[in-house]
């Protein structure tokens, strides 16, 4: 007999009912890995959505002075970098450096030229990424020598910068927005199409089911990459198209899973009981089939999102995905992989974000599967 099952049931005198969802939630809460992952995912989403507003650098801003700057928790420029930046500026001003000193974050510089120096040349100083707020201090009577001061801009690049000198932190966060959005949206698209299609096929059964599932088989046989390349060729590179392509391919799995579930639920005695009560098909679908389908759908959804993120990364890696200056984790990893020798941080940070998110999603998916698995009950 089912002694264990009976023993595990809650005591019969509890008056407040606990639904299967409540039960599943209690199980999930007991699963530390899943709860930690859930928390981590929430944090990741929050950081990616709100983070870019709090990072002082825009993800498109190019700091030509800071190309491939390694990550550091200290402010840039470092002492030895000021001289290099200064040389660059003076070269553009076509003047020679006579003397300079750095005090309290302001540099006082004396330069000399072969021709009288125009004050307006100081704009070059302001334009530099290192200096700011350039002020004329003194000028020799013949105009060949000038002393000016400029503030040294304190900038932080916690994740370093990329090949053209853009802040990697803000780029990683913005890329996270894109990757998570694609994952979620394409996931929702795939699940919606898949559930509707699969539930219809499974519930109606018979010839309708046969035809609908053969269509799925035909779509399955189309190679995915070929499909995407075709879309890109015809419609150009387009962010929305990505959702469509990914969603249009991934709903097939969902449809099969849901159809199988619907087929088996249709044979359950509670559906027969509803038929014996005279309940209409729409009522059976609404009250019996769909609620009992949701468990596997939720589980599959958590596993679908990482799948989509990886697909997007893969497409972007091939150059078929999102385009510059917009970026995604896949794009960042692709660029980082090219620079792995000279600037490994460009690979490490986006890769860590992507991998940890995928891990968390998988843990949540596993946790949900265990929580909703009736066998364990």
């Amino acid at each position, binding site marked *: *007999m*089912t*002694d*264990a099952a*009976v*023993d*595990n*049931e*809650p*005591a*019969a005198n*509890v*008056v*407040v*009912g*606990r*639904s*299967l*969802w409540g*039960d599943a939630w*209690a*199980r999930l809460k*007991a699963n530390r890995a899943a709860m930690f992952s859930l928390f981590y995912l929430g944090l990741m989403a929050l950081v990616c959505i709100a983070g870019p507003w709090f990072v002082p650098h825009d993800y498109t801003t190019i700091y030509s002075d800071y190309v491939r700057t390694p990550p550091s928790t200290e402010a840039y420029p470092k002492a030895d970098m000021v001289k290099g930046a200064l040389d660059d500026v003076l070269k553009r001003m076509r003047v020679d450096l006579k003397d300079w000193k750095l005090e309290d974050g302001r540099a006082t510089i004396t330069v000399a030229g072969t021709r009288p120096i125009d004050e307006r040349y100081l704009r070059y100083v302001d334009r530099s990424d290192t200096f700011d707020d350039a002020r004329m201090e003194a000028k020799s009577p013949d105009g060949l020598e000038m002393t000016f001061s400029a503030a040294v801009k304190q900038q932080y690049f916690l994740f370093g910068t990329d090949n053209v000198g853009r802040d990697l932190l803000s780029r990683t966060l913005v890329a996270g927005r894109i990757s998570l959005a694609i994952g979620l949206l394409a996931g929702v698209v795939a699940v919606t199409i898949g559930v509707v299609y699969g539930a219809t096929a499974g519930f109606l059964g018979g010839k309708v089911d*046969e035809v609908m599932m053969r269509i799925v088989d035909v779509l399955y046989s189309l190679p995915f990459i070929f499909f995407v390349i075709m879309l890109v060729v015809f419609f150009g590179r387009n962010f929305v198209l990505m959702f469509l392509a990914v969603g249009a391919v991934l709903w097939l799995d969902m449809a099969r899973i849901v159809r199988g579930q619907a087929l088996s639920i249709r044979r*359950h*005695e*509670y559906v*027969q*009981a*509803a*038929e*014996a*009560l*005279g*309940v*209409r098909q729409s*009522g059976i679908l609404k*009250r*019996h089939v769909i*609620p*009992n389908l949701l468990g596997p759908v939720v589980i599959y959804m958590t596993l679908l999102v990482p799948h989509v993120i990886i697909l997007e990364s893969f497409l972007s890696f091939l150059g078929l995905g999102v385009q510059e200056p917009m970026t995604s984790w896949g794009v960042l990893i692709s660029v980082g992989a090219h620079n792995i020798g000279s600037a490994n941080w460009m690979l490490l940070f986006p890769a860590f974000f992507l991998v940890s998110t995928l891990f968390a999603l998988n843990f949540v998916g596993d946790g949900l599967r265990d929580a909703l698995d*009736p066998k364990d*009950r």
Partner: protein
Amino acid sequence: MTARETILDVRDLKVRFRTLDGDVEAVKGVNLHVGAGETVAVVGESGSGKSQTMMAAMNLLASNGEAAGAVDYRGRNLLGLSKAELNTIRGSRISMIFQEPMTSLDPLYTIGSQLIEPIRRHRGLSRSAAHEHALNLLRLVHIPEPERRMKSYPHELSGGQRQRIMIAMALANDPDILIADEPTTALDVTIQAQILSLLAELQSKLGMAIVFITHDLGIVRRFADRVYVMRRGEVVEEGEAEAVFTKPQHPYTRMLLAAEPTGHKAPPPANAPILLEGRNIDVTFSIGGGFLSGETLMLRAVDHISVRLKRNQTIGIVGESGSGKSTLGRALLRLLPSDGVIRFDDRDISHADVSAMRPLRRELQLVFQDPFGSLSPRMTVGQIVTEGLLVHEPALTAKQRDQRAVAALTEVGLDPNARNRYPHEFSGGQRQRIAIARAMILKPKVVVLDEPTSALDRSVQKQIVDLPRNLQADHGLSYLFISHDLAVVRAMADYIIVMKEGRIVEEGPTEAIFDAPRDAYTQTLMAAALDTARFRSDHGSLLPASRL
């Protein structure tokens, strides 16, 4: 009875399971012992911990369970042994057979290879010697054509034959103790009797001890030397089988013994109107067929059956699994397509379609066998019970529906507070009450009860049998009572139809059928179910064990 050497001694065994709702103590300090060659029965209802006691002794508890106490087998405590040491005892010195013969054999391997593997492992025999030994085992358990069966796959065998194979596997290494956990519960009564007499015969040949775990007291009386009665994880009574049956000490044992459904149903007056009538009903299922899948196989599940159900009558339909009795019940409610004429309340409904049937559905109701599968797990009890009202009385407000649910649940003897809870929080008997409430809330005229008691414990069965009887008296209902359990049918029905392979083999008033069955099949059925002769004491009266 001479004193036997004690070979299995369970002392103060405790089993607890860690669950989300805290620890559950399934076994609370059980003492029992088994002597060599003895048959010990552990009896109790589901949840009494009878299976868990033996599972703990064999170290087969679920992962969230833990056992404390001592289980001594010939002086060694099994609870302290390592897995490797345990495996030298498990499966060779102590072996087990389980309830479900359909799932305990691997469908991918032949019977032969599943038998030979463990023999070779435990005895180190060569392949041909193991093959010979396996053949002998099959002969021992009376499998016909053992040579051919060695090459068969499990799906080619019937349930009874599979259980014989399981017994053969358990006996492969000449065990000291055979633990049989409800070995006959999933089988039909006639097969059940054959398996029991096989076990009795094997015991007298091989002399092993049998620990028989069951909820069925009828079996125990015929089979066991000593009995332990368990309840809520404790042994409430133990003793010689005859003593326990003739002079039960504990009130719980007395209650179990009295749990056999009693009473009988008086037939309706002869002039009662005929409510539901089926004439020459045929139900045919097609197997296979369809696009590109070859020939369609036609299976006739119900073959030219006529039934007339009068107002206030209960017709019992009896037969073994596969006899077409459930199919007949569903065909009469027009839930399955069928040929023949079906009339309800003087209307011909043989060709009524789904929408024409809808208004009639509230008068023709169905209660299912499995109270675990027939209630949607995601709906509250209140929603389940009132679902029919949504269809048949759409004008009711939510509040009125709620009041009706309270009334219906009270009528079936449940706390109305239960309507906010979910089905998985209830026991089997309570769920069956919910299913009955769902049918009764519509005030039907005819209810088909499809094995409503067979998934339930005996003491619960008695209550569930009483419930429809009382409702029948109150509301003048007519029942079609489908069951394989003759004791229940005898208490419920005033007219009986015995079915076999889709046909009626015998029908008539209940007492006439029970007192003087005419058909040979009916006689076998009666003998298997109601015979109280002991299997062991008198081997002359053994049922022919080879008949399957």
